[in-house]
């Protein structure tokens, strides 16, 4: 087995920056939204689970054409298109 390369600080920063931003948003929100207040959250444009069908093919195309992966249903394997 060949040894993996160590992580670079510059690329580590690319990960930590958005993580810190999203974490700050979470921490800023302590109020609980009651079920009866979520009518607008169930509108078609707010329900990303409706896009699961098309997301699978997008992940397939992106995995075979980009060096990055993740953030969807893809697993980084599954076809000979690498």
């Amino acid at each position, binding site marked *: 087995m060949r040894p993996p390369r160590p992580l670079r600080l510059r690329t580590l920063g690319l990960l930590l*920056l958005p993580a810190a931003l999203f974490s700050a*948003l979470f921490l800023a929100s302590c109020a609980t*939204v009651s079920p009866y207040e*979520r009518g607008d*959250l169930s509108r*078609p444009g707010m329900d990303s689970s409706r896009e699961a*069908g098309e997301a699978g093919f997008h992940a397939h195309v992106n995995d075979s*054409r980009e060096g990055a992966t993740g953030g969807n249903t893809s697993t980084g394997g*599954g*076809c000979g298109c690498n």
Partner: protein
Amino acid sequence: MRRPATTVPVVALAALVACLPVMAAADESSGTWTGNVEARGNYYWETSTRVLAPEISVNVESPGGVRLNGHYLLDSITSASIASGALTDVRFNEIRHDFGFGTGHEFDLGEAQLDLSVNGRYSQEPDYSSLAGTVSTSLSLADRATVLRFNFTAFHDEVGKILRGNDTSSPDGGDLSNRGKQGDLNGMVMSFLWSQALTPRLTLDVGYDLGLLSGYLQNPYRAVVVDSVLLSEVHPDQRTRHTVHGRLGYFFKPTDTAFHLIYRAYMDNWDIAALTPEVRVYQEIGSLVLLRGRYRYYTQTRSFFQSNQGYSGSDEFWTADPKMTEFESHLVGGLIVVRLEFLERSILDFAWNATVEVGLEYIWRTNSFGNGVIGQVGLNVPF
């Protein structure tokens, strides 16, 4: 010449379709079976490759809350790309079968709900096979205002090599096209996702994926000139991938418009770092039509072993993979979703609750893959 293994998937698809009347009957008799059937047509085009991928998926939930799902996808790839096995400028067609089944159940814990599910997937093409299993769990808290999800996927791929072109016969006429198995690829992916309703019109998803790959990670068809000799590319045999991603959704009530900001940051131990910001805008037109516009930007650095200056025998790795280069891409696309409520009380009344969607997207890339087009058509019928 190996023939694609078509029998098993066709039987699985037939079984899936044959089950539908039974499921519908259960729905009629008890009124408690629910589910949906989704049929999709996917299309991808770029200069050297065309993909047609029809698929069908079925999801049902029993009166006791047990969910079952199955899918089948036929991936028809037409390519003249050397990276896909063409020895010369010859166009060929390859078929991939992809199918999977799964089951799940949600347990009510009083103040929280715990959902467990398992899924299996198998993909087969003449020179590649993949077997994967996924265990998923989610915990819903605060009346589902907070949902924590965890997925674990393990997979095993077997990589083969089949040469296309006119010179794959031996002098005595034997078939030399199938070069046999080239290697195995094993991997696992762990995903964590936190979904939170922040306000009555604002949601946030934050996730982290860790991928560990080990084994044959290059493409057996791509070759590189090393010290004036053409050699198959060699990549490291281990890869560790980290992805942080988030999605912020906001609903603007006066115009029934939803805005989504999506961000993904990626890095791995091949020194590839990538950023993917994206914006999506959804506009409701009455109660039947939803329009979506989308822009996605992607940029990445090159891998540590990719070189534009050529390779020498002293190099440990070499690659001809465009995905290993520094590049960027822009995607612009539109989607329309139409609910078929106007079919109620017509001869197509069974589809009154269905939706039809049509999407088209264009991608500009700065690497040798070139530009691409993605087209999708979908029909979703709940029952």
